[in-house]
């Protein structure tokens, strides 16, 4: 399957990665190569095969729905590039 530059631009947008206009053709070609490789999977008969959800058959553990941890806002914020007054700070989100 061949990926065009428009699709490459759309994927970059979805992934929230800025890709310059002039880098799109090369990116589209790389996608095409990788997807071409992946397309071998179409040779496999997967009729009636369940998609794997868990490599080890297991049921997720249940626990009571109650607070087990918390009250560490300072530690949580300590790695942030911009934190103020107990909050993460970001550029303006709404106009």
């Amino acid at each position, binding site marked *: 399957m061949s990926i065009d530059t428009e699709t490459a631009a759309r994927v970059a947008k979805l992934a929230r990665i800025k890709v310059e206009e002039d880098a799109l053709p090369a990116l589209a070609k790389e996608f095409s190569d990788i997807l071409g490789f992946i397309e071998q999977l179409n040779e496999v008969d997967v009729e009636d095969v369940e998609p794997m959800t868990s490599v080890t058959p*297991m049921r997720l553990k249940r626990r009571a729905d109650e607070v087990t941890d918390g009250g560490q806002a300072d530690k949580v914020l300590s790695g942030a590039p911009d934190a103020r007054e107990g909050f993460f700070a970001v550029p303006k*989100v709404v106009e």
Partner: protein
Amino acid sequence: MSELTKLTLAGARDALKKGDVTSLELTEACLGAIEGAGALNAFVHQTPDLARDRANAADERLKAGDAPKMCGLPIGIKDLFCTEGVPSQAASRILEGFRPEYESTVSAQLRDAGAVMLGKLNMDEFAMGSSNETSVYGNAVNPWRRGNDETQLTPGGSSGGSASAVAADLCLAATGTDTGGSIRQPAAFTGITGIKPTYGRCSRWGIVAFASSLDQAGPMTKDVRDAAIMLEAMCGHDPKDSTSAELAVPDFEAMLTGDIRGKVIGIPREYRMEGMPEEIEALWQKGTEMLKDAGAEIRDISLPHTKYALPAYYVIAPAEASSNLARYDGVRYGRRAKLSQGDGVVEMYEKTRAEGFGHEVQRRVMVGTYVLSAGFYDAYYNRARKVRTLIKRDFEQAFDAGVDAILTPATPSAAFGLGEMAEADPVQMYLNDVFTVTVNLAGLPGISVPTGLDRQGLPLGLQLIGRPWEEGDLLNCAYSLERAAGFVEKPAKWW
């Protein structure tokens, strides 16, 4: 001094117990070796003060007679593990400056077992790579060379720094992680031992996530006994990882008897790849004979879906990565791009991720985004998960028919030159994982054991794949192979 760094974990442990050496002496010897090995670029964050503190504490405990199993043994930790107060950036620019407030479960267990952390080890960015060439710290370098040729070789990846450091005797052992072969391939490239345990054996909590359904931590060591010792310390149930298994951890070292009489070793015909170097084929044959001579029954088996493992992996791993790496948004940790006047939150995400992620990581995140996007989810992602079911079934059928372990080559070649693959398309690099990736998809334990040298003098490894949860048996098979192969070569020091 430098002789001390050549010790195995078992050798150092016994010497410490007898009082022939102190942990501080061992630690100083390693710190000295690291200091002199800048050319290998294996250790990227050194923690000498922390190491000396822990060594002193270990010496106290040894004196008091309450030494835990790895008391006083100096090790390196892959940069993928979060370590409290110590830079942990998965070799990525986007985590620049990040010092976690917490310790990963595995590194905490090693610390509690008395191990001394010397520092953090180089790797491919977010563990995405097979040559350690995608690291923000620059390439890690293999201590091995092709005879007198000075070409710098890759130590493999993604745990390239770990492999280089252990092979060059900068530390006694190191942690690695393995999503598609990232412990076993670098181990094979550097003549050391590396085991990826069964999915769920080691807690993933606090290890920077790449592909959560495939990621497992494991030890990278100088021999099989050390792998048994260190794996035991790393394993165990952790309530903070919902996929961590609630199973007792056996004494793996005690299971190393070397007796594999009557064990059935499967030789999968699909691993005989077209264009595989003759030397790899010959080594595999030799390994088969060694196990046979040790009393194992050799059986030809078929794992028919092997061919589809790599393409399935390159759907599933990027898909999970695109989801896991969504958290690097310039808000909660690490680096945020400089913004221009008027830039909003979307520009912040896009610029931060464009300058924070390297090329390979960007590519995988975008491929993952594509295969999960509306209209392609069924055609790519669901199909790959179905193929994964079939790959696992292949192994189950072999084990149900009585096979105890499976012997394969670890890698399709010896270590290649740094930069040699720069012009190749990404798929060429992915082929490095062709023998290892099936094991991650099926969640099985796999170990790479050094078994010989190629004609250029570079190490080659064989891989043994075991039944789920039977790492003890697998280690014992590997121990038998190791004894028969008698691999003792070390790289000549040039750095």
